[in-house]
């Protein structure tokens, strides 16, 4: 299964040429501006369960997207058909749709002098992600699961172990002369063991390692062991009474709060008044110790490009580092060209672009800067409270800031972690929650593109028994 690793890449049409051709055809069809994206992705994944292969998947796909402008009117189209016929239909479709849209004074590509791309090697692509022979990829997934199963007799079942690899190529071209492309790679190993207590009550948790290079992955054994530790510590979970106590968010859940700040500060939400941060520019929105940065240029400590690193954004503007919140003060909204024009500001080069539709607003490597306390010191400072390790549901209202989510974790008593907690909610309002961050950990690690150290937040409500 592994012998044809990079799949369709060998006989693919040059994507840059293709994207430029699509732009040219759109201009020929009368567009005043055009922008094309082309993507090529391939993936390999193996899942094992209880030591046996469960699924093995290997494939690739390509796609093209086109946005056309006729003055201030625009429309878009996408296709998986990269044949000359498919491209003709793509262009005709976008052009026809542009006849039904209306003029929007803020629509349009960025200005010509704004385009650009980082030229340094951002270390986004490593060809070693497919270097393992097929049987060894299966072995990695098995080793990861086996380490979890072997960790403790209470690990009785498993949702499996996996090994994944993927590479992709993205191209952006437009009628104002920008053409850019880059390749990315990914490898990952994970396990999801299930622990059971003496009454048969089950708890599942998981852990993973992912990297742009196979060589940078943690060992499958280390990942499996950590997955087991996480499942085991959930055993015996119970509810706690409804009360207000300090909440300590572990990094893997604290990161979602940082993500909420980004979304609330996103220019689209701001001009729509659909954010509790609308109008909050240059005001205090968080505790003085809070600094949040979105860095799309970042290299990780291991030398690889961050998971949110890219040479240019979804509209062809060069990637950059943006301080979003500095010492608790909101310094900027996050914008693509459209949102910036709506707000009378400049793009922060945060355009995100899929194949279909118009550019959105997305983060690169988004993080809350670490503080000085170890997570143990933060927990140690809590007399009675909840250490949250898992969150459930969609209870974040960015318009009002209301926050209410299902939570799992461990109870803190006199500065020590005690029994596991489940079936409770944690609730508050993001406005107050960010101002009530009373401790920031020193444990910032970039496991994904959005990262946070451990955070303690006071004044929230637990609803439970």
């Amino acid at each position, binding site marked *: 299964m592994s012998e044809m690793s990079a799949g369709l890449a060998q006989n693919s049409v040059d994507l840059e040429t293709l994207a430029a051709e699509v732009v040219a055809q759109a201009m020929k069809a009368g567009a005043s501006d055009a922008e094309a994206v082309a993507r090529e992705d391939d993936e390999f994944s193996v899942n094992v369960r209880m030591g046996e292969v469960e699924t093995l998947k*290997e494939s690739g796909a390509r796609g093209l997207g086109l946005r056309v402008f006729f003055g201030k009117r625009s429309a878009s189209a996408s296709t998986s058909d990269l044949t000359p016929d498919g491209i003709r239909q793509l262009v005709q479709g976008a052009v026809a749709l542009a006849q039904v849209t209306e003029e929007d004074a803020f629509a349009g590509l960025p200005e010509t002098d704004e385009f650009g791309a980082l030229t340094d090697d951002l270390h986004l692509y490593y060809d070693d992600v497919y270097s393992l022979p097929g049987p060894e990829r299966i072995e990695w997934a098995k080793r990861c699961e086996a380490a979890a199963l072997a960790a403790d007799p209470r690990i009785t079942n498993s949702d499996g172990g996996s090994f994944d690899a993927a590479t992709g190529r993205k191209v952006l071209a437009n009628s104002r002369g920008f053409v850019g492309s880059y390749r990315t790679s990914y490898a990952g190993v994970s396990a999801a063991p299930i622990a059971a207590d003496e009454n048969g009550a089950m708890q599942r948790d998981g852990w993973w390692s992912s990297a742009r290079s196979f060589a940078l992955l943690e060992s499958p054994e280390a990942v499996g062991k950590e997955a087991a530790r996480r499942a085991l510590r959930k055993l015996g979970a119970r509810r706690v009474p409804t009360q207000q106590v300090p909440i300590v968010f572990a990094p893997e859940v604290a990161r979602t709060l940082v993500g909420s700040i980004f979304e609330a500060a996103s220019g689209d939400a701001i001009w729509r008044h*659909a954010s509790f941060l609308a109008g909050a520019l240059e005001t205090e929105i968080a505790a003085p110790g809070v600094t949040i940065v979105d860095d799309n240029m970042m290299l990780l400590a291991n030398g690889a490009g961050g998971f949110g690193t890219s040479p240019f954004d979804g509209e062809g503007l060069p990637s950059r580092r943006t301080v979003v919140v500095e010492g608790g003060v909101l310094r900027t909204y996050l914008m693509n060209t459209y949102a910036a024009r709506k707000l009378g500001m400049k793009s922060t080069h945060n355009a995100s672009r899929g194949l279909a539709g118009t550019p959105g607003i997305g983060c690169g490597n988004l993080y809350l800067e670490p503080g000085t306390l170890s997570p143990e010191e933060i927990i140690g400072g809590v007399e009675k409270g909840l250490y949250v390790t898992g969150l459930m549901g*969609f209870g974040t209202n960015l318009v009002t800031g209301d926050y209410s989510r299902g939570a799992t974790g461990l109870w803190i008593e006199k500065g020590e972690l005690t029994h596991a907690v489940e079936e409770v909610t944690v609730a508050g309002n993001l406005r107050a929650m960010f101002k009530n961050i009373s401790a920031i950990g020193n444990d910032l690690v970039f496991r994904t593109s959005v990262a946070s150290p451990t955070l303690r937040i006071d004044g929230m409500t637990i609803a439970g028994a």
Partner: protein
Amino acid sequence: MNGSPNPPQISHKRYFFEKFGITERLLERCLGEALSAGGDYADLYFESVTATALGVDEQIVKSASQGTSAGCGVRVLSGERTGYAYTDNLSPERLLHAAKTAALIASGPAKQPVQGFTEAPNADLYPVPLGGFDLDLAARLELILRADRAARAYDNRIVQVRASYSEELRRILIAASDGAFASDTQPLCRLNVFVIAKDETGTTKGSAGGGGRAGLDQFVGSKSPEHLAQEAARGAILQLGAVAAPAGEMQVVLGPGWPGILLHEAVGHGLEADFNRKKTSAFAGLVGQPVASSKVTVVDNGTIAGRRGSLNVDDEGSPTQETVLIENGVLKGYLSDKLSARLMGIGNTGSGRRESYQAIPMPRMTNTYMLAGEDNPEDILRSVKHGLYAVNFGGGQVDITNGKFVFSASEAYLIEDGKITAPVRDATLIGNGPEALKYVSMVGNDLKLDEGIGTCGKDGQSVPVGVGMPTIKLDRMTVGGTGR
């Protein structure tokens, strides 16, 4: 969307045969290749999707987009193992290559022959549009422009209105080594309205939507652009005066329709056969046991004409059906696909679904709802001394292993002395799946299905689904607010 003059089956199949040059001979060759290394079973899943979306924003038709994608997924089963490969190029060479790749899940000489294809007659649950991109865009634009006007006219505190319309036509053809052969053309459309309301006390949002596998004539009555717009606007205005939701355990009354998301999260996912085959579900081994109060009967039904979750055939080519999940409180069975049915020795409920040709099918829900009971909804509310009345929800989520689930109320009110009083701010409700429905003490006579807005995610795959419920009372549920 107009009805096709052709008998549906013939035109679904003909589409792939004519447009991509697929022949029965090629299908047999690919399946033979897929089984060449000793697999037990193989299937080919061809999919061609065209999608169109239109959006009005700030009274301007700002966006129009279309997309098309086509491809084929080849699956080979060998015992409990699945090999999968897909291609977006439907040439015979690439199809055979994908088949060869998927075949390698097994190792050994070919042992299973490819059976001759038998095409079962399809149900006919939705109109087959003439489709493609030759849509009457003006008629579709009119829907969102009407919604925009109605939302703005509702109240002068409505400061932002966005309305969108999306439509998709999905054609599928499935050929399997066991002789199963099916094809279908599945329309799906949806109208959404999103508003922002603002006054001196604050800013709030409201949204509403509706749709299904039916033509434009479905957008009348409760799904009319005006009604949806008014619902979105009403929800936003209501929130302007909302008080903090209570925190803690209390009696909860859920309104009819979309609050049926409770069933989807609390029991539906936990009853998908794959989780139970692997014994990773909190419901594993509970068939025949009480998991709800005797007033509760829950079904999953993929055969209701025009519904968002309905399908003539599932993504393995099996006909969909009505499956009783819980009958008078007792767990009756699971939702199964071909693989789990074979490995567990249970019936295939036609629940094998997938997001696209790039994804492996697995057991999924269609339209999941609770049957009506005998209680008058007003009596249900009157019976509550202090509690929460929740009538609209955002999303939900479940951990199927420990059974804990959440769903987030976006429109809810306090109940005090049997009367609905103040609206409350958004709050998440949390419970334990195998226990929560045991506290259902009253079931209304007002069963309603949702308006066609649900999308369910599992293992990264999204599929459209429906839910439904009458008004019900739960004697105990935890409400995750911040108030008293």
